[in-house]
């Protein structure tokens, strides 16, 4: 049981390049989330999904797109990377609607855009 895994762990992009971050979970969780973490700002929600085939915008969605074609995977795409997207990205999942449902986080992807 690997929990939540993220690929890749590190990446350096040039401005204007594109990339996709992959999140996978093996806990059969319904809900999945993408956050970015920046110093002093905590974690901010980018996009989330409440089930296979569904996605919704979070607090800071601009410049990102997501897809949830399979229940276990949640992809985050950057179509044209900008230096402002330099950050650490975390994926999380939770079983479902119950407020007590713990969000389980992956190890993060450190992205630098030059």
């Amino acid at each position, binding site marked *: 049981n690997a929990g939540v895994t993220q690929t890749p762990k590190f990446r350096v992009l040039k401005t204007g390049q594109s990339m996709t971050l992959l999140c996978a979970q093996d806990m059969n969780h319904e809900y999945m*989330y993408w956050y970015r973490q920046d110093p*002093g700002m*905590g974690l901010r929600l980018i996009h*989330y999904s409440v089930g296979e085939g569904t996605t919704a915008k979070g607090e800071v969605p601009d410049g990102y797109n997501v897809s949830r074609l399979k229940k276990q995977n949640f992809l985050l795409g950057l179509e044209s990377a900008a230096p402002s997207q330099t950050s650490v990205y*975390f994926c999380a999942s*939770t079983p*479902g609607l119950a407020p007590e449902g713990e*969000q389980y*986080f992956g190890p993060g992807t450190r992205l630098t855009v030059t």
Partner: protein
Amino acid sequence: QQQVKQSPQSLIVQKGGISIINCAYENTAFDYFPWYQQFPGKGPALLIAIRPDVSEKKEGRFTISFNKSAKQFSLHIMDSQPGDSATYFCAAKFEAAGNKLTFGGGTRVLVKP
């Protein structure tokens, strides 16, 4: 606009001392208040959580105090240990909004031996 404000940004405490982190929220629709602990290079992990109908919750050396009327809650780490050195995030969520978490800005805690 930050809906959950956390202070201090950092604190240093001696081994055996008490660490106190404070959070304030604005949205009265929040119905669950977890604290997450994050070690360098790792993702956050749930430490302890409380519902707004409870004023205090204790798990081992960690205690949450909750003041609903003031819209404030705090984490107390008793008998702080060097292994507690980490970044702590308070958060809030409400069930009707996809169980989304709204995080505070984080507090970096350093426990000196």
